[in-house]
Every structure is written in C-alpha cells, then in structure tokens.
C-alpha cells in the first residue's frame, strides 16, 4: 500500500526548517526576553547597594568618611559593628568629626555631640543624624539605599 502525499519534498523541508528555528527561538527567546526585560522591582533593587570600603580599612574605634549618592557619610567601627551616619551636622551643615577617645561624634562649629547611633547627646542640633543601613560581605562594606 502506498501513501499519497500532496506535499512536496520541498514544502516538508521548509516546515522542518521553520519548526527547528521556531523551537530554538522559543527555547532561547523566552529566557532572553525575561532577562532583558526583568520585573521593575528587580531593577530597582540594583544600584541601591554600593561598596564603600573594606573592613580592614576601618579598624575598631576608627572612622572613615565616604560619599554615598553625593552625601558624605561617616562609617564608624565601634562596639563590634560598622555604623553609618551622616557626616553633616543638622544644625548649620558643618562637617562632623569622630572623636575616638570619647566614642562620640562632634561638631567643631557649635560643639554639638552625637552618639554612634546618631542621637543627640548635647549641643544645638535640632535633630539626630541620618543613619544608613550597612551590609558586610566578603570583608567588604556595602551601604544600602533605603
């Protein structure tokens, strides 16, 4: 018994080729599109975490001032952890300094003092210092934008 086919060899070949390329395009195309156009919450997450230094650069009791999204931030290694607080005094906008001996942040302009968590201890500052979230991985310090 012989089968009669209406389709020519050429049209079968065309279908095979189209099938192959469609399948391949589908297998690689879907992941590619999802990769190039990820959900917005994934894109927003990126860029919020920024490496700002190495752990060994800030020994216990010392501090380092870095720029985070254009703002000077003081990283302080005190009490067994890294704290990040704004390095600008909320009173008149002076640069703050870390006093290693007393373990306090001081303003050289009008003598406002803050503790390591940014809370006002004394002086004219109307509000506490802005604090930032810090993450440490592989001995690197990352700051996270909230």
């Amino acid at each position, binding site marked *: 018994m012989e089968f009669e086919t209406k389709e020519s060899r050429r049209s079968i070949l065309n279908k095979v080729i189209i099938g192959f390329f469609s399948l391949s395009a589908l*297998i690689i195309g879907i*992941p590619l599109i999802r990769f190039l156009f990820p959900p917005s919450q994934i894109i927003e997450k990126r860029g919020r975490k920024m490496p700002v230094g190495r752990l060994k650069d800030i020994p216990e009791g010392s501090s380092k001032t870095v720029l985070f999204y254009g703002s000077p931030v003081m990283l302080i290694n005190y009490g067994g952890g890294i704290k990040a607080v704004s390095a600008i005094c909320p009173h008149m906008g002076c640069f703050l300094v870390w006093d290693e001996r007393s373990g306090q942040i001081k303003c050289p302009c009008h003598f406002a003092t803050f503790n390591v968590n940014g809370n006002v201890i004394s002086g004219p500052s109307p509000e506490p210092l802005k604090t930032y979230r810090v993450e440490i991985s592989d001995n690197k310090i990352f700051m996270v934008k909230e």
Partner: protein
Amino acid sequence: MKEYFEKWAKKKVWWDWDNYSGIFLLFLIIIEIITGFSLSFYYEASPEGSNESLRYIMNSLPYGWLIRSIHYWAGHLIFIFLSIHIFLKILKKKFVKEYVVEWSTGVGLLILSVLWFMSGRYITWSQNSFWEITTLSEELNELPILGKYIRLFIRGGESVGSQTLTRSYVFHILFLGILFSTIAFFHFKSIINRHTDTSEVSKKSFALYLIDALIIMFFLFSLLLVFSVFLPVELPPPADPYAVPEKIDVFWFIYPLYKFYTLIPKHIFFIHRVLIFSIACSIILLSFSALPFIYDEKKKYLANFLHIFFLFFIILYSGLSLLRVFL
C-alpha cells in the same frame, strides 16, 4: 524516514564533518553574540562592580544564570568544534593553494578566537583571571625592546587595575568582535564563491545537506542546554590583589602551550624563555598559515611530511588540551 537514514549511513556523514563543524562554529558564535550582547546590558566593567554585576545577573535577574551558562559553554564548545574543524580540514587537504583565502583567514580566526575567549575570562575579574593577566604581562615585559610597551598596553598603566579591565572589556566586545566579523566575512565569502563556482555541494542534494546540518545543530543546541542547565557556571571568587594564589588555572585550549612554556628554563644562554617561546610560536603559526604556499603536491616527500606532521600536531595538541579538561 528509513530511506533517509539509509542514505545518511551510506554517504559516510563523518566525512562531511569538516563542513558541518564550520556550520556549528557559526551557529555557536551567533549564540555567543546574542548572549554576550544581552549580558553586556547589565555587566559593569570596574574592579568593584564586575563581580557584583555578575552576582546580580546570576542571582537576581530572571534566567540570568542560564544566559551566562550558555555564553560560557558555547565558548568552550567552540574550541572543541574548532579542533574537529581544523583536523578534518587538514585530513582532507583543504590547505592546498586553491583554498588559500579560507585557510589563511581561518588561521586568523583561530588566533582571534583564543584572544576573544581569554579577554572574556579576564573581564570576570576573578582571582584567577587577575593573576593570569598579571603574570602574562609580567612575562611579556621580558621581551626585548617591545616588552615594556606590550606590558603597558595590556595593563593600561603600571599596575593591573581598572584600566586593564576596561581594556579587556573593550577588546572583548568591540575590537575583537569587529576584527573577527571582518575576517569571518572573507572566510565565508570565499566558501560561498567556491560553492557557486564549482558547485561542489550540488553534487549531492543540498536539501539532504541542510537536513543533516539541522539535525546535528538541533542536537548541539540540546547539548548546550543540557550543559547549561546541569552544569551551570559558578561565580568565580573576586580578584584580591593582596592574595597570591598557589597556582593559576589557564584556559584549557592553551594549556599545552603554557605547560611547554613552564618546562623551558627561565634563561637559556642569557636569553629569556619568553623570547624563545615567542619565536617558536611565531614560526609554527607562520608555517601553519603559509601551508598553501609551502605545500606542493609535486614534491611528494615534503608534501607527505607536512601533511602527516600537521595532522599529528593537531591530534597531539587537541588531545593534550582535552586531557586537561578531564584530568
């Protein structure tokens, strides 16, 4: 279908693998370009951001691990098919004078592929790649006259750092890409011209040729997916300029060269090994690319010697580099 497979078995399909492997190489390079182009959307070429961006690609982005794994495995498969391609081309004596354009552009593409792969390794800015580029540039510095300029050119400064990474990245995505495409264009143009001139392919059915290629290409694509899914590439440890690793893992395809290099004593009669090695490599590569001019069918002994020598060389070299993968 049975009839087709009978035909397939009869015509000794392995004999055509020199052409098929070329088609697969093209297919793999297209995959590399597509995935590489996609990865470049998120990659950050800076010593601080490189590892972090790779982590973001692989851990946060949807299918990021798959895209990077495909990019990685396609790169490795290219060198396996490249070995098969060169071996069969030599076996079928496709280096005679009439194939001069294909042969010389092919040798150029081989060198560029190695550079392309190596620059790709460097931009991961891992501990291994950092020390590999440091050692390589330091060794090349020993070359007389040109050494210090080559070192400076590779590093982009006195030390290996952000400039080196930027250079590797530009080389990887721009310079080598453009150069490779240009040479590949002449390679393929010459092949197409030959087939339309002498109708070498039309002796057998072009359709059968195409079906063979498609079936094996589909198999190759599946193989690539299997490798990428079951052996996904891992994030390498980031570069640490203060910690010298015990050993450097060089790219497996150049491993025989590297091993041979380390076996040479550092100085032979006050001449640094890098100069001896560079001269030896240049002679081999030059004679390899000039094979269509050296090879002469009339000089039977020389012709046979060259044919057997290069066949043996390719088998030995590919065997040794593949051993590196499995051992």
